[in-house]
């Protein structure tokens, strides 16, 4: 089944190592809260802010989840060091959207997709389904944060270690002028993010109605 979606807002961000100026102090004024956030959570808060999304259903995607927290835990186990409870609670794949929900008082549904290299495509499908069944606007966001110590031991092809793409979407009233997802990928970005990047780039070029296969 195919649906046409309207892209209401779209944003992307990426950097070779660390994305600068995520406007954390403005978005999360309380330092005690800010200190607990993962990099993915900070990027998600920034992207949602840029897209003007504060409340509603969220579909989040990441192929590798919270690598920094996961690596910290395995390091602690290997070195017989105590595991930080904060690190463990931050290690789940849904921690970024959960922080968003806590900071914004968003009590709606959160679904986290992790489908390997097609994570952002599956997130787009899932967000479109959520929009279809609810009739609401849905935030679809995909983030990868690979900037951990010794990542070069496994990373052979991704240039940008931190990257994120985000759209707010709704079901279109009709299919008129809707387009298939175009090949507007970003070179050097991890494959898991490319489908959503393409949609963001389509939006930047003025194509704001897209077909999605559920």
């Amino acid at each position, binding site marked *: 089944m195919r649906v046409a979606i309207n892209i209401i807002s779209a944003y992307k961000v990426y950097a070779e190592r660390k994305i600068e100026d995520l406007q954390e102090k403005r978005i999360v004024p309380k330092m005690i809260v800010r200190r607990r956030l993962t990099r993915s959570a900070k990027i998600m808060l920034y992207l949602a802010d840029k897209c003007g999304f504060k409340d509603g259903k969220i579909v989040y995607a990441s192929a590798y989840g919270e690598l920094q927290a996961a690596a910290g*835990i395995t390091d602690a186990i290997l070195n017989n060091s105590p595991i930080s409870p904060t690190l463990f609670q931050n290690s789940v794949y849904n*921690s970024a959207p959960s922080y968003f929900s806590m900071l914004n008082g968003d009590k709606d*549904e*959160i679904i986290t*997709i992790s489908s390997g290299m*097609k994570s952002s495509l599956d997130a787009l499908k899932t967000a479109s389904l959520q929009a279809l*069944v609810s009739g609401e606007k849905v935030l679809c966001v995909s983030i990868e944060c690979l900037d951990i110590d010794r990542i070069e031991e*496994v990373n052979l092809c991704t240039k940008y270690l931190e990257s994120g793409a985000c759209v707010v979407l709704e079901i279109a009233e009709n299919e008129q002028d809707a387009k298939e997802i175009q090949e507007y990928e970003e070179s050097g970005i991890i494959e898991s993010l490319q489908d959503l990047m393409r949609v963001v780039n389509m939006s930047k070029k003025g194509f704001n109605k897209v077909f999605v296969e559920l």
Partner: protein
Amino acid sequence: MAFINSYESCSCAGNTQELMNAIYSKSTKITLDTSYIKECSVGLGKMKNSDFFEVLNNTTDKVLKKSNLKNFNDSLLIVGSSIGGMKASEKHYFKDNNYKNIDHSKHAISVIQDFLNDKFNFLYTRSISTACTSSGNALLLAKRLIDIGAYKNILVVGADSLCYTTVCGFHALGVLSSKPCTPFDKDREGMNVAEAVAVVLLQDSSYKSNVELLGVGASSDACHMTNPDPKAKGAISSMQKAIQDAGIGLCDVDYINAHGTGTLANDRVEALAIQTLFKNTPVSSTKAVTGHTLGASSLLEGIISCEVIKQNKLPPQTGLLDAENQNINTIKETVQREISFVLSNSFAFGGNNISLVIGVRK
């Protein structure tokens, strides 16, 4: 309509039939273990077969054989898992102290969908990871996709294996029990981490079964990363939504399969949520038998709910001596009675809540 036509599971209690026997005889299958945490004994739910992927393959194959499908070529696969391939990555990392021999594609959550797709060749696959509600969210998506007619057959898999990260991580949070967990008991110590594979075939028409996934409800606490909202608003909301989605009333629910991890915080808040909505509906947590199977738990308990309906037998609360909350009907013995609707709860880190209504329409 989403019919639950075929299912199978494997947990520390064995296959589904063995699991139900253990539940009805109040026989916990949690074993005490000292291999994960030095100088500390914790209760864990370990599967007999330590080859997780062999269990995954065999359990899925059994579901296919029990179904009316020749293969899964026109089926969507939705996997719910919180661990994915972490166990294999840990093994390499602890041996090498570097990442060089870690296959990134086998580390990710998607390793399970990729393995099953290689074996069974699905039409499409996708994976969900929302910690302990992963397979519950997989069911939620599956039901909605079937309801709108997008797919006729969806295989939902919940699968998580034991690994150091989760056992040691929950230990760091101070929520592990040194004995088999005793949900809802005044003197409960905490939870037991466990592993399981649960597989369910949802279809748009019935085949040898009239049990349906009737309702799904989801919410977020928007409160705390690990502790539930003390006022239980998120849990209440997910249960209300599931019941509303099912088109039944609160008084129609015959049994509640609680999330009931055995931790102080979860059981107190979940009991408050149940007390707020229900008068005398029987409640128990089968985690006293299986342990907490994390991302697989929603689906494993969904299968238990199907069996409860088919057998018309309420599962007793294993390990319960003195209930903390006397305002909920935590049942201590197996009761035979007609059961039409079961409500099953799952709650996760990040305040992610899922409730399912499984039942038979009259």
